[in-house]
Every structure is written in C-alpha cells, then in structure tokens.
C-alpha cells in the first residue's frame, strides 16, 4: 500500500524515539541510585520526584512507541517532557549534561549538544503525535 512521505517520516521518527527512550530508560533504571544522586547534586528543582518518574515514563512511552500501542499519545507525552528538558538545557546552557542518556562514557565537549539533541527529538515527537499513520476504524 503506497504511503505518503509524512507517514514514512512519522514511522521513522517513531522508531527513532522508541530506540532512544528505551535505551535512556534502561540506562537510568539499571542505576537508579546513581541517577538520583546526579540529579540531586545538579540542583535540579524537584530532583527526587523527577528521578522517580522520568525513567518509568521513558520506559512506558518507549514501549508504546515500539509496540505500536497509543503511539500518538506516548509521543505527545514525550514531546512535553522534551520541551521541558529543552527549556532547562537552554536555561542552564553550557553546564554538563546529566550523562544519563545512551550509555555514554564521556559527554561531548560541544556545549550545544544537549539543546540540539533535545530539539531533534522534540521535532520527532511532535511529528509522531501529529501524523496519523493508521486509518481509524469508522464508527
């Protein structure tokens, strides 16, 4: 069945987001204490609540995207999360990243890395949440 470019883009973005957020979730969940410590000492507001919620939010939304269940809703939630992270990254521009993303051993020295990464992922999340990739059954 032929698909429009916007649908192909949305499906690609969906799998990119799924891979990124599942990797990010596993990174955090396998080291929850370390992740909490890093957030607490980075003086992030409500650090403990963020540390308790974000890994599971990433895991749940990542699974939804990967499995194709409630895809647009999961993408919308991730878009809100990414927008908040982008605002924080810009407000604290130049500070080190939390290094809780994608199993890094060293963070890039490039100070634009965090806001750029969040902007790209935010664009993906918005794309997935707006584009309908399946035909809804008629009522």
């Amino acid at each position, binding site marked *: 069945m032929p698909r429009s470019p916007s649908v192909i883009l949305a499906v690609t973005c969906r799998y990119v987001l799924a891979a990124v957020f599942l990797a990010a979730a596993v990174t955090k969940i396998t*080291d*929850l*204490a*370390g992740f*909490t*410590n*890093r957030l*607490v*000492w980075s*003086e992030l507001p409500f650090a*403990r609540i963020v*540390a*308790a*919620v974000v*890994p*599971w*939010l990433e*895991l*749940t*939304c990542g699974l*939804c995207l990967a499995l194709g269940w*409630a895809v*647009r*809703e*999961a993408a*919308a*939630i991730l878009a809100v999360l990414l927008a908040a992270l982008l605002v924080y990254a810009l407000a604290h521009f130049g500070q080190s990243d939390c*290094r809780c993303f994608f199993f890094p*051993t*060293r963070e890039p020295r490039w100070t634009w890395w965090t806001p750029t990464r969040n902007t790209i992922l935010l664009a993906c999340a918005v794309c997935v*949440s707006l584009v309908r990739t399946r035909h809804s059954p008629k009522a």
Partner: protein
Amino acid sequence: MRLVNLVRILLVVAVLSGYSAWVSWERQSKTPPRATEYVESTDIPLWRRADAEALWHDPSTLFVDVRSSIDFEFGHIAGAISLPEEEIEQRLPELKSSLEQANTIVVYCKNRDCGKSLWAAIRLRQAGLRQTGIYPQGWNDWYLDGLPTEGTGR
C-alpha cells in the same frame, strides 16, 4: 488522540514510579549509615566498602573526591563531586550550601596511604559539616570491586 490512552499511560507510569520509590525507600531504611571504626581520638567515622556502598544507595549522601582533577576526570565514584584537597579553602565557600544539604558526606582519596581524605574531612568538619566521614580504602578499592563509576577512562 484519545484522552483515555493518555490517562492509561500516566497511570502505568504512576504505579511503576510509586513501586520503585517504595522499594528504594525500603532499601534505605534497612541500611542505615553506621561506622564500624573512627579516626583515632576523634569522632570522624571510617566507613568500609560495604558501608560506603550502602551510603551510596542513599541519595542524601554526597561522595567527595579529594584527588586531583585529572584523576577525577579519569575515573571517580558515580555521583561524586571533585574537591581536590589543595583547593578546599578556595572552593569551600561556593560549595558549602550544597554540602550542607547532604545527610552524609563521604570523603575519599586513592587508597589508605593517601592522607588527603583525613585532612579534607577535618577541614569540612571544622567548617560545620559534622556529617563528614571517610572511606579510607577509597577509589582503588571501589574500582577494583566493580562498583559504579564514571569518568573518561572507564
């Protein structure tokens, strides 16, 4: 987009987060920080690896690495901050408010032969940070046991 799906996702997240937070709290409450020995003629606690590891799981604990910045960059205990012993006087004023938030401060150096952690702990306690103790076996012991670390040389 369906509101009911949004609510379902958020409910799943809330349940998972709540369960995870409860498990973490249970673990913390069962492993209270305690010292098995003290620096001679002082009340500065000396924590062994098991104690240090239990403390590390408590987010209100701060690990302070008093080795050089180069050593810190190469590898350090996950979540630790760098405060080289030579820079304590200079950097303590800016860090004090952060350090005061910690329930426990664990100072560590390279190994037992490194005296920096003792002098740093004394200085921090003199500055009013009475919750400071020492993990004398330090980085080498932590690293060799395969405990969580960060740094460029991992």
